[in-house]
């Protein structure tokens, strides 16, 4: 039996008249790395806030079998989240912060966090406000990875970081956190960087989930092919999802069209998440 960590039925959230998240059904088992992808204001953070018990909501929602809004404190023993790079208290010293987390979180391994930080340039007696963005992320990551959680939620965790720190961040998540018993949920604008590590993707547009699928299914279902001008009419007869003309070639994205049918135009290839997101947004 699959260990379902997150289950939502008709999950919705409104701010006054505006429905930031339209009724959504969701089921996330263990062993997934889920990318939540959408434009600014699409409802990604609203969804995560609901999952984390950070805001009220309508509908049914269970995370680790708990109601996040009513049982957030208990839930956070099993869920860890990094909202963005600027949420650590700037006035605190790194060592004090580790002490406090050790006092507050029963599943925090302080020695593990310190060991990780000793491999970085972060000084334990430094104040957070004295650290660079990259260092702050190292501290936050050291804390998160030292917590024995089942779910790790990352909301734009690498915003403002350079490419080296971004890559190091995701490498650490994969090597030091993820296994088949845990789930990672990521929202980010740097879709191309997380795409290789995702097992599932959820697209959100205007508060609605427009796609919720495994990456393998996406690779099979959506295919792109470059079509010559003299074959465009034939290709368009297969009702492509999206087309884009560039440098004398037209790229078509197809949904649920067998690869064999597309080979007549050229070699079909899988569609990148960024391209697919744009295609589905058309």
């Amino acid at each position: 039996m699959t260990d379902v960590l997150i289950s939502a039925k008709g999950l919705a959230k409104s701010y006054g008249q505006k429905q930031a998240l339209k009724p959504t059904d969701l089921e996330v088992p263990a062993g997934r790395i889920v990318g939540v992808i959408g434009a600014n204001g699409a409802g990604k953070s609203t969804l995560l806030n609901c999952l984390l018990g950070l805001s009220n909501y309508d509908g049914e929602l269970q995370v680790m079998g708990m109601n996040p809004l009513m049982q957030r404190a208990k839930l956070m023993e099993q869920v860890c989240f990094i909202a963005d790079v600027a949420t650590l208290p700037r006035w605190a010293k790194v060592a004090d912060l580790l002490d406090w987390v050790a006092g507050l979180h029963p599943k925090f391994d302080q020695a593990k966090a310190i060991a990780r930080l000793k491999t970085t340039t972060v000084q334990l007696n430094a104040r957070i406000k004295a650290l660079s963005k990259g260092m702050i992320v190292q501290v936050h990551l050291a804390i998160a990875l030292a917590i024995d959680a089942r779910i790790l939620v990352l909301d734009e965790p690498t915003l403002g970081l350079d490419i080296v720190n971004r890559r190091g961040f995701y490498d650490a998540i994969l090597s030091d956190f993820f296994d088949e018993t845990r789930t990672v949920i990521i929202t980010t604008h740097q879709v191309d960087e997380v795409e290789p590590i995702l097992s599932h993707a959820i697209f959100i547009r205007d508060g609605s989930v427009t796609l919720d699928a495994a990456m393998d299914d996406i690779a099979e279902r959506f295919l792109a092919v470059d079509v010559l001008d003299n074959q465009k009419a034939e290709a368009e007869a297969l009702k492509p999802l999206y087309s884009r003309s560039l440098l004398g070639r037209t790229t078509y994205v197809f949904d649920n069209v067998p690869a064999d049918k597309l080979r007549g135009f050229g070699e079909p290839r899988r569609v990148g998440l960024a391209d697919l997101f744009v295609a589905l947004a058309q």
Partner: protein
Amino acid sequence: MNKFLTLIRRDLADNRGALITTPIVIAAIMLVVTLFASLTGNARFGFDPEDFANGRNGAAVEGKAYIDTGSEAVAVRRGPDGKVTITRPNGETKTLDETMDAKAKATIETVLPVGTAAASLLPLGIAGIAILFVLAGALHDERKDRSILFWKSMPVSDLETAAAKLVSIVGIGLFFALAVTIVLNVAMTTIAVMTLGNVGITGVSASTVYLNGVKLWVVMAVALLIYIGWALPVYGWVSLVSAWAPKAPFIAAFAPLFVVPLVYMAISFRGNEHDPILSALWEPAGRLIGEPMFHEMTGVVEKSQDHIPTIQVDAMLAHLAANLGQPGFWAGLVLAAGFIYAASEIRRRRAL
């Protein structure tokens, strides 16, 4: 419990400047000033020795029962060894010690610790004001700097968080200031006792002075506890506003407490100081300055039958204990609990 203590440690670290450093710095400044004043010698008794030489001011000195002269002018001299002598117009010269009888010295044993205790209260008073600012920012600033998102990733309830902030800022903040006040009191009393010896006054029991000081500390500690009880609904209100206010939480918290009664006074007040509406509107401010606690309280010092003043420890403690019998005291605590719960609920339902 470990979590709660950790939250308190965190909040104390967050507000170290206002809650810890400020009372210590104020006490240090007061100590330096007192030490400087006593060393320069112009204020060895807390008044200028030249006042002794001035007949008009002699009455005030007499009123404190330090000397047994009438209102005639006397000459006061301080020798190289610091001893003070007083020469009357008829040429009679006595040391200051000789002018004082046993009752006068017993009076010093009582009055001196009261005076130094009163002088030492400044750190506590300043802390009482500082905690209002800290409390107003407690649940607001974490939203402002977004650190609430980090703290909410910890398995700690919003009620625990709000309660810990109240305990650390109000409880520990004020009692730490009281501890600083007591340490300052010990230092100032010691300086005063040494000064007594320096000017040649004998027979004043230092141990009695300190014992009277200890009695006052007990009264102060109990009074502080009762004060917090009276003021707790105001502190709870401030916490609630801190959790809710989008900006300027201090103004948002205190403007209603002062502006509403002032507006009422401007519109409807007809000179009746016992106007029940006005009394109700001013009650939060009154609680904040401890007005209900000190209502009809007897003096700290009272002369006994043999005219030796005594510190009214029992009477003061009884008066303070009587506060526990007032329904308003307990109603305030219930209201405070409601405010804290509401503050935690507001914090629970919003991320930023």
